């Protein structure tokens, strides 16, 4: 059985903080979308290393971690400018 709790609320909390990621044009700090894809791949590896947390057995990785990073990236794409 898929545990919907960490999937839904991990996405929501990540989305809230993802909306605040804003790269300013006048700043010399650049994080293009490709860097966020790399962060996503690294976070998949980290989630796989954490394993099914806490005591869930529906997925081989930490579902809250993955949906958290998906929420952050989605928030950045939707509202982050």
């Amino acid at each position, binding site marked *: 059985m898929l545990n919907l*709790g*960490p999937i839904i609320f991990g996405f929501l*909390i990540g989305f*809230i903080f993802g909306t605040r990621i804003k790269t*300013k044009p006048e700043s010399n700090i650049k994080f293009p979308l490709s860097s966020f894809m790399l*962060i996503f791949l690294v976070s998949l590896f*980290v989630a796989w290393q954490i394993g099914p947390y806490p005591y869930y057995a529906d997925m081989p990785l930490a579902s809250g971690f993955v949906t958290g990073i998906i929420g952050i990236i989605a928030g950045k794409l939707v509202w982050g400018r």
Partner: protein
Amino acid sequence: MSTILKILVLPLSLLIMCMGIVTILGGHITPGGGFQGGAMIASGIIFCVIVYGLKDNPLDLSHNFMSAIESIGALLYILLGLAGLVFAGSFLYNIGVDLSNIVPANIQCIFNYPDITYAGIIPYLNIAVGLKVAIGLSVIVITFMQFKPHNKIENE
């Protein structure tokens, strides 16, 4: 700050924030919970604020955002407590689990956290506390960063 730090800190802080989210969402059955997870999210934000400074910070937390999220966290906690008072007669009664069998089944379904542990409203309380702590701890550092040195104020 050095270029290496500026390249590494945003990705690292995002991973730290995800770890905080995981800690909040597992708080009902593992060590940790709202405060610890919120402190981890705040540490990711503070990491960015210290390295990039307030002007160039990619995690741009505005006053309105911080006040809204902190208020939502506090209100969610109080509303969950009041729901217990309304449906069961005692503040913060766990109406998602309903050990005393006094809450209607449809209300119980609404407040039960959807996972295999049947924790009721405890994960929701963790989420409320997590949001409040994450912003509350970040606000302290952001406020200190906004202070001007005493010499600059005298020169102005």
